[in-house]
């Protein structure tokens, strides 16, 4: 599974993307976030305000109860500020 991070999430985690093998126990965005937070302080800081973070699965916005599976492209980022 490919995970992408943007803006200040990228900065806090220290990576713009990573390829991970999804543990069998993880099957939602929420579960993925819990698992990522367990990996270190950078993740914990990046996901501290979970309510403001947006997620996309395969380049479509999703809610955090959305399913995830190996092979998906997942992205996490702050609210967008384009235009």
């Amino acid at each position, binding site marked *: 599974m490919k995970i*992408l991070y943007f803006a*200040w999430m990228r900065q806090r985690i220290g990576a713009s993307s990573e390829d991970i093998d999804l543990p069998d126990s993880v099957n939602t965005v929420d579960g993925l976030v819990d698992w990522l937070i367990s990996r270190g302080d950078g993740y914990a800081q990046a996901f501290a305000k979970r309510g403001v973070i947006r997620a996309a699965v395969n380049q479509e916005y999703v809610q955090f109860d959305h399913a995830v599976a190996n092979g998906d492209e997942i*992205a996490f*980022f*702050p*609210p*967008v*500020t*384009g*235009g």
Partner: protein
Amino acid sequence: MIRVQEEDFDIGAELAALSAGDTSIGGVASFAGLVRDMAPIDGTVREITTMTLEHYPGMTEKKLVAIEAEANDRWPLAASLIIHRYGTLAPGDQIVLVACASVHRQAAFDACQFLMDWLKTDAPFWKLEDTDAGGVWVDTRDSDGKAKLRWANKPDPAS
């Protein structure tokens, strides 16, 4: 048409190309967003030296195509255009251009505002402002969320 690019764009040439060859067009509404030299950051107005736009390659294009299709579904447009830049820009530089051509001016205006409102809330871009207090990620503005809400209902085709 949508374009996501690092290079600058020429508004005159873009608008001319948009309406070229279609004399059914009665008007072209457009909006160009520029980098401002000042911004309120945590209650203090700070000078901006540069602004860096980050985006999500792939998803950005996909969302812009979808937003443009939605605008063309809602209003009778003869042509539409969204150009959004990324990379590092200076105050006064052009960030975005949205233009809508239609037989009727109200459709052109409404579609143009609709696209700008959606860009602000749904296009995966993030702005980092470099100031004398360091780099600061731009926060979402409440007014942008409100601006988008006015499009929750489709327009009355009779209006």
